[in-house]
């Protein structure tokens, strides 16, 4: 039982990070109907921004940790907007496939520029927040980092939900995801809303990158690939384009991954996670919470 609860905590904190990344995939899909594969590299840049920002503060406490976190989110928001403006906007009216391939290109570009600028050697990540291990009794231990991950993720998810549901700009995002042409006809500035969506998604990915690096403090320019793919699986599992679905899918993926890893099939972890993708595409292509839409002709 102790082991089960401990794995539950491990899995939830991993799932919370995947949720932050998965939301970026799902939001972009919602408004533009394509998968932004460069998203996992934004996640990587987020972790590295945190690494360099943290050097400005030789003595770390909660306040400097939050400054680093929000600073990196800001940097990545700008990066996300730039990627959209330079790479995707010129292709806005081309077929989805063209944009998809461009996204893969941007992803490779960022990986390689990352290797050039940051170097290919793994870097040890600084502890941004004061660290402590809390024994919960019964042999269960939670590190303060895991609590930070869960807390920050919950807070950001709540903030995102609030933005999408309760604000005018959120309403515009939802309008755009229903019908782009109709949205522009009623006076919504499509370009601005799309930029805003990218900024929001990228900021969440940056937060995910920093939280990931806090828990697994060794970062390198290729670190985004695997978590990015798993977050993508999570987004599809929950129903791509659906915000609560992405969060739910991410938690499921985090838990499945942790429980498989702790079992004797640990070497098959990634295989099992990706076969979930295949199964969901076979039996419930719209995902757990998604609605199946027939292609309009």
């Amino acid at each position: 039982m102790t082991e089960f609860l401990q794995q539950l905590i491990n899995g939830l904190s991993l799932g919370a990070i995947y949720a932050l990344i998965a939301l970026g995939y799902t939001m972009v899909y919602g408004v533009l109907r394509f998968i932004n594969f460069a998203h996992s590299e934004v996640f990587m840049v987020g972790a590295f921004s945190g690494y360099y920002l943290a050097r400005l503060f030789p003595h770390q406490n909660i306040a400097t940790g939050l400054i680093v976190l929000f600073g990196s989110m800001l940097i990545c928001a700008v990066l996300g907007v730039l990627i959209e403006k330079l790479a995707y906007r010129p292709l806005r009216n081309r077929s989805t496939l063209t944009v998809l391939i461009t996204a893969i290109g941007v992803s490779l570009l960022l990986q390689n520029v990352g290797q050039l600028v940051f170097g290919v050697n793994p870097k040890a990540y600084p502890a941004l927040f004061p660290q402590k291990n809390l024994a919960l009794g019964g042999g269960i231990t939670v590190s303060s980092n895991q609590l930070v991950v869960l807390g920050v993720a919950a807070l950001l998810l709540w903030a995102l939900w609030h933005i999408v549901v309760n604000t005018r700009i959120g309403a515009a995002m939802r309008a755009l995801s229903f019908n782009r042409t109709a949205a522009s006809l009623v006076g919504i500035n499509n370009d601005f809303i799309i930029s805003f969506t990218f900024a929001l998604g990228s900021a969440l990915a940056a937060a995910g990158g920093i939280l990931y690096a806090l828990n697994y403090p060794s970062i390198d320019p290729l670190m985004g690939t695997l978590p990015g793919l798993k977050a993508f699986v999570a987004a599809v599992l929950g129903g791509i384009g659906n915000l609560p679905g992405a969060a739910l899918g991410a938690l499921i993926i985090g838990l499945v991954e942790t429980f498989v890893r702790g079992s004797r099939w640990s070497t098959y972890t990634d295989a099992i996670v990706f076969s979930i993708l295949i199964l969901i595409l076979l039996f419930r292509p719209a995902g757990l919470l998604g609605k199946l839409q027939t292609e309009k002709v």
Partner: protein
Amino acid sequence: MKNWREQLLSAIAALALLLWSTGCNKSGGEAGAADTIKIGEYASLHGSEANFGQSSHNGTALAVDQINAGGGVLGKKLDLVYEDDQSKPGESATIVKKLITRDHVVAVLGEVASGRSLEAAPICQQNKIPMISPASTNPKVTETGDYIFRVCFTDPFQGKLLAEFARDTLKVKRVAILNDVAAPYSVGLAQYFREPFLANGGQIIIEQKYSSGDKDFKAQLTSIKAQNPDAICVPGYYTEVGLIVLQARQLGISVPLFGGDGWEAPELIQIAGDSLTNTFYSTHFSPIKDTPEVQNFVKAFQAKYNGETPNAMAALGYDSALVLADAIKRAGTTDPAKLRDAIAATDLTGATGRTRIDAHRDAPKAAVIITVENGKFKFLRDVQP
């Protein structure tokens, strides 16, 4: 008209081909007549085991400098041609092929990681070019063929000494193993630890696995913790080991963790920091040993590399180049077959002690056990073979 053009084109093509082939011959001839002896080296200068590659390369480069300063070998200077495999699987075979076929090196030095040495060894063996690995401990490396040597001990020895260390010094009976299934080094060392440890009444209560490049080990460690082991054996490389030690302590696992020479890098301390208290590993060399060879090597290394203290990989990289130069000297030629025989007859004292090549082309040597105290590596003791 068309016909004439075609003829002209083919004439130009033939001329170009002729020029190119004579050009090639010429440069080949020059290389042979030059007054240097080209030796090749491949190392992981970047990537997840960058510290190993850079250390062994620095050691090798220091040895080559010293040999050249002393007049070289056979009246010629050594020319070290080195390539970076970026710690990636699949790279080392390609670059060793390039070293042999394009640079025409007389022998190849490398690698530290057994997995990458195992990729390159068959190429050296096929081309009958001697290869000396500085620090690959997996026995399969030299089993590849009679042109493949190493200047370090092997994992059966290292595994046995870890088993004895666990039983006699740590006084533990119930041990968990967490090993890297993607690294032949780690799989081998785990196996060579398991056998003698079980034979002497120890118990392996749980075995968990991970793959190089993983970052999350909490799940495996949680299931290890549930079995309540007396100690955990982690025979991996430093990038992952650092994260494993850190996450083990975060989960409240306070028992000793121990492993092999894959731990030896300052990055281990950068990643895991204070969590490393009560951890131990075995390796090839300690810079605080008081023999003249060690002290001269440490001084020369620090003078060349801004006061950096050499680690085991640097010492072995240094020794691998000394062994090669000594063999060229004794063979009196760079003919690969004679060079091979000369390397097989090596008996030389270097930075890591006396190197004698045995019938399996390995070099049985003493090991040292290191612990970490207050964020610094600390020499614990010697273990004789």
